[in-house]
């Protein structure tokens, strides 16, 4: 398909562009990784809900990595590794934000839960 090697070396060598093969592999993988979780939820193939939740989260994580590699062309070498460093930093902040918010707010909700009269009667 690409018998014509591009003649001019364009100035910026950042971000490799990937090949047709990369894009097609990425696309097929993401279609599969999208279709399976949708199928799991729509048909209820796994009876246990928390198992299903874990499985679809695992699929999402894998699909994010697939997109990073095949569509965003992440690698440890681009920009002398600074893109990966920025990504790792972002993931750390992201995990702290998400887990911190959920953790704190869950306990806040739990402790501030309005009580029904029945619950009040059972207080020690």
């Amino acid at each position, binding site marked *: 398909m690409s018998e014509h090697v591009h003649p001019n070396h364009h100035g910026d060598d950042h971000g490799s562009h990937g090949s047709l093969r990369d*894009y097609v592999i990425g696309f097929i993988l993401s279609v599969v990784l999208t279709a399976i979780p*949708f199928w799991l*939820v729509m048909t209820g193939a796994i009876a246990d809900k928390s198992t299903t939740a874990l499985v679809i989260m695992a699929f*999402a994580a894998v699909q994010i990595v697939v997109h990073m590699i095949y569509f965003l062309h992440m690698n440890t070498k681009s920009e002398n590794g600074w893109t990966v460093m*920025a990504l790792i930093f972002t993931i750390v902040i992201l995990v702290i934000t998400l887990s911190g918010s959920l953790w704190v707010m869950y306990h806040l909700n739990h402790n501030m839960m309005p009580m029904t009269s029945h619950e009040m009667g059972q207080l020690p």
Partner: protein
Amino acid sequence: MTATAMKSELTQPQLQAAFYDLDEHDHPEGGSTMLGFWMYLMSDCLIFAMLFAAYGVLGGSFAAGPGPKDLFDLKLIALNTAMLLFSSITYGFAMLAMEKDNRGATQLWLLVTAVFGAAFLFIELYEFSHLIHEGATPMRSGFLTAFFSLVGTHGLHVTFGLIWLFTLVVQIGKKGLIPANKRRLMCLSLFWHFLDVIWIGVFTFVYLMGML
């Protein structure tokens, strides 16, 4: 050599040169654009992290209003996701055409990407209007506020991506695939695929987990 001796030997210009790099090496135009744009995407990622956190916290606060199971239609979301995935690979084809310096094909694939992107937005707006029509407005409950903020911010990003995409089609038409335009295409490529990554989070955590 003592410190005082060293001090006396340094003349004024030498001292200055230590603070100001007088013969700075060449920075080619746009040399730092891709890294800078990546930094922008990472900060954008944090915006979405906050919105996901808000959804995680408020996602169960229905205020006796409708919940995900009453509102979401997974078939519509699957269609929406397919539109975004198709637009991702067609943008990839635009990048491949750009690498071969094929101006017409680049513009064509960009326009195909725009069609899928617009279809995504159209379906999303249809869903939103349907929800609002049913009384599930952002003001109804904490869950709906967080839902509209998160999904709406993503949709807004796609809208701006589309505007950017049309701008680039015009610019390529006027100036061709010059290095500056290639750089812009590469930035938009990162942006577009990044939005797809965010959408993976949205359909998994909001729609699929909501319907469980």
